[in-house]
């Protein structure tokens, strides 16, 4: 993206004397000897700057969407640096190569990867800074570095009692080379990591001052709205430009690749202009597309030709020789991200530059889209990323930026595009609906000898058109965590005009439900306790066994329930974290309403940076999974989307939120992600508990009262 010259120019501009690129395994010094003059910033690596005013600035390549990453990242750096927490501030890094995520090389936040990718590089960065500052102080005192110690933003000379603040060492430190392998702190030396440090973004989020994407105001900006086709792929047939322009405050009507844009002085004038426009559209590419047609298609798809994702040779024989065969079919609906902050973006395109403001999980994606539309170079696009009012995979989408940049380019004005809730629900890209069919064999001892799994769904991961196997469909299946000697996984590509993209825990959100429901069915078929049955099939994985045992122990598995009628166990492994949960439910036999009393969750994600935000992520993902399990389904009609707002796309409210207990395993294993792993547990822990309570096995989500009553009637 940026050439050597550009990078050097940047370094000069920023007054940096050293730059290193951090990778998970090592710190690599990219450049360069001591600078001739500038020494007003000590920067031992791209994300860290210390200035003579004693300010420690940590630059962030990750978006804050509620996960607490803007607190966790500086905690790691500051702890290893031995900085005083109060001297640390953070800024979003410029969207330039040297500041990017060291693994995927983008400014993007997804896949529960931030801490996994940054933990070691940030520790090394902070530790390198600490070692250099100590050396700088030792040089100034002309003593050995071993006589000096860094404590909370100062270097002390032990025997003389002298000290320098970090700010006072900037000039000397910036002339010293960066050590390749600085000594990392021992866990016992941590002062911030592992403690519940208060989140840095919360005071502004409580006062009302926090700036989200929608809170962008640029002088001279107009509001942009877009008239969009009601059905997928529908072509515009007519619109009344003059009528729209007659609306007071409407300035521009722009036909472009996403519809017809109306730009106006106020948001309400833009909406009135859109109404007056009276755009007419032809039929969509699949006029008969509806909820019923998609439900039928997903069922039929399970018999269509498939792509092989895994095919162990012993599967057919094991199935033939089964002591017992078990099979089941499961269906999951399309889901909306239903992010509280609707899609929005602001852009200002000028002749030689473009600036954007958008609540994006992918600033790199924003930069790419803006560069493509404007014809400018990436380095001419300044990307601003305010707080995101939720993300969950949905804010990797760049639709809003596409529209704001296009309209700003066409009008020459800064444009703020705001989607209504109806637009956000109807025009976003969904978690695909899925169909699953599983066929498995048990031997006489109740061990699973073969597992044959067909999954049908659209492609959410990777690039390029289908047909190809989608990891979003088969992750968690082709690498099924249970000890099963023979596994076959077939993927059926669902090629429909409905746009899809990753949702929180893209594969786990459906494979958690199918795998963990089916493991429960197998346990019962084998007449075994579901906890014991899982442990028996996890013997190669002590960490997985530990979380199952912990969830069972903390939930009182095997003991009488108080209040609830049934309990269900689940476990999952994703994003390098092991999780398990027990849900306790009761079922109203008259209304079909499920009451989830409590979910007890156990987690082994390796070391925990901030136990308070970690707990919040685990609990929040369980709530989102429970919301999907109990309530969520996108409805389609007439070739487009029928669901429109929170009045017909329901998400979980307070009355249905259970008590959640989270128990972390004290673990020194490789650090894992925590934003998503618990989500897959929610649905199957509830359906398994419903089975425990009633004997009714529900294999289709969501668990609407009608569906529950229907299942109860079959028992």
């Amino acid at each position: 993206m940026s050439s050597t010259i550009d990078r050097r120019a940047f370094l000069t501009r920023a007054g940096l004397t050293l730059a290193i690129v951090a990778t998970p395994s090592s710190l690599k010094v990219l450049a360069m000897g001591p600078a001739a003059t500038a020494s007003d910033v000590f920067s031992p690596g791209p994300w860290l700057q210390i200035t003579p005013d004693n300010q420690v600035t940590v630059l962030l390549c990750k978006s804050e969407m509620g996960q607490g990453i803007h607190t966790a990242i500086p905690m790691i750096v500051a702890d290893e640096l031995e900085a005083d927490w109060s001297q640390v501030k953070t800024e979003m890094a410029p969207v330039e190569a040297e500041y990017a995520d060291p693994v995927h090389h983008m400014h993007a936040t997804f896949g529960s990867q931030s801490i996994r990718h940054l933990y070691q590089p940030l520790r090394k960065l902070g530790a390198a800074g600490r070692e250099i500052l100590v050396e700088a102080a030792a040089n100034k005192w002309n003593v050995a570095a071993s006589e000096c110690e860094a404590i909370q933003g100062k270097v002390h000379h032990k025997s003389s009692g002298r000290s320098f603040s970090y700010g006072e060492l900037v000039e000397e430190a910036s002339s010293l080379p960066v050590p390749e392998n600085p000594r990392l702190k021992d866990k016992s030396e941590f002062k911030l990591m592992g403690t519940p440090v208060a989140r840095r973004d919360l005071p502004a989020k409580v006062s009302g001052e926090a700036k989200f994407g929608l809170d962008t105001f640029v002088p001279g900006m107009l509001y942009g709205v877009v008239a969009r086709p009601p059905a997928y792929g529908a072509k515009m047939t007519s619109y009344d430009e003059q009528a729209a322009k007659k609306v007071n405050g409407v300035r521009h009507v722009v036909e472009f690749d996403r519809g017809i844009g109306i730009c106006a002085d106020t948001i309400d004038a833009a909406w009135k202009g859109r109404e007056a426009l009276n755009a007419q559209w032809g039929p969509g590419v699949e006029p008969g597309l509806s909820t019923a047609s998609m439900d039928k298609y997903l069922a039929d798809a399970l018999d269509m030709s498939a792509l092989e994702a895994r095919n162990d040779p012993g599967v057919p024989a094991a199935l033939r020789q089964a002591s017992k065969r078990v099979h089941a079919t499961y269906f999951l609906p399309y889901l909306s991200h239903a992010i509280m902050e609707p899609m929005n973006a602001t852009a200002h395109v000028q002749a030689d530059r473009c600036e954007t403001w958008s609540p994006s999980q992918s600033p790199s994606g924003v930069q790419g889209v803006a560069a493509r539309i404007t014809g400018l170079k990436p380095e001419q696009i300044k990307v601003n990323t305010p707080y995101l009012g939720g993300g969950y995979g949905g804010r990797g989408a760049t639709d809003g930026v596409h529209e704001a940049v296009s309209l700003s380019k066409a009008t020459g004005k800064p444009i703020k595009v705001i989607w209504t809730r109806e637009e956000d629900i109807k025009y976003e890209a969904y978690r695909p609906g899925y169909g699953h069919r599983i066929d498995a064999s048990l031997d006489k001892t109740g061990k699973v000898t073969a597992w044959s799994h067909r999954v049908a769904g659209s492609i959410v991961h990777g690039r390029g058109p289908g047909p190809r196997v989608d990891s979003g469909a088969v992750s968690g299946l082709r690498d099924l965590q249970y000890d099963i000697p023979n596994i076959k996984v077939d993927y059926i590509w669902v090629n429909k005009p409905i746009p899809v993209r990753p949702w929180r825990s893209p594969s786990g959100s459906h494979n958690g439900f199918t795998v963990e429901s089916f493991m429960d069915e197998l346990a019962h078929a084998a007449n075994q306790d579901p906890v014991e049955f899982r442990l028996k099939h996890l013997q190669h994985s002590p960490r997985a066994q530990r979380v199952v045992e912990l969830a069972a122990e903390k939930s009182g598995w095997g003991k009488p329930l108080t209040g609830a009628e049934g309990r269900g166990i689940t476990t999952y492994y994703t994003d390098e974290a092991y999780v398990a949960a027990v849900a306790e439910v009761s079922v109203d036999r008259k209304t079909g309403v499920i009451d989830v009393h409590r979910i007890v969750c156990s987690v082994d994600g390796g070391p925990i940076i901030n136990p308070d935000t970690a707990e919040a992520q685990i609990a929040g993902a369980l709530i989102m999974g429970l919301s999907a399990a109990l309530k969520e389904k996108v409805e389609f009609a007439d070739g487009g989307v029928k669901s429109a707002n929170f009045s017909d796309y329901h998400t979980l409210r307070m009355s249905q939120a259970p008590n959640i207990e989270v128990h972390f395993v004290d673990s020194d294993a490789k650090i894992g992600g925590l934003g998503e792993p618990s989500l897959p547990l929610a649905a199957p822990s509830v359906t398994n508990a419903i089975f425990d309570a009633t004997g009714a096995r529900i294999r289709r989500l969501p668990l609407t009262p009608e569906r529950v009553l229907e299942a109860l009637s079959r028992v």
Partner: protein
Amino acid sequence: MAQSITLKINGKSYTVQAEPDVPLLWVIREYLQLSGTKFGCGIAQCGACTVHVDGQPMRSCQLQVIRAVGREITTIEGIREDHPVKQAWIDIQVPQCGYCQSGQIMSAVALVEKNSNPSEADIIQAMEGNLCRCGTYTRIKQAIYQAAEEVRNS
């Protein structure tokens, strides 16, 4: 036609040129740039736009601006920093993404000022209209209990 409209918000007087039927929400957050009040749904289903009008919690997306004239409007910015609800929200570390929290706080302030000893059912009744996609409901409940206790003891 747009007309000159004067509103009293957080004790201050603001005059704007606006169509009389524009929802108060948009005047507060886009015209006056008091952007702590959030847009979530536009149909009173999510509570993100909750403000107080003459002390009562209201969805500002449902109130035409002309109908707010002459009334005392309070937004998140008008709740003092040391209010027990705001303090509890920090102590319990309630927000995740934070987008819905202005509305949550406005609903919670109205609740504890009316009822400083709310039962769980009271809390659910007051808060059921405020959606949170990050799933902070448990911490919201804890924070309301703490804030209510603070109000009782003051």
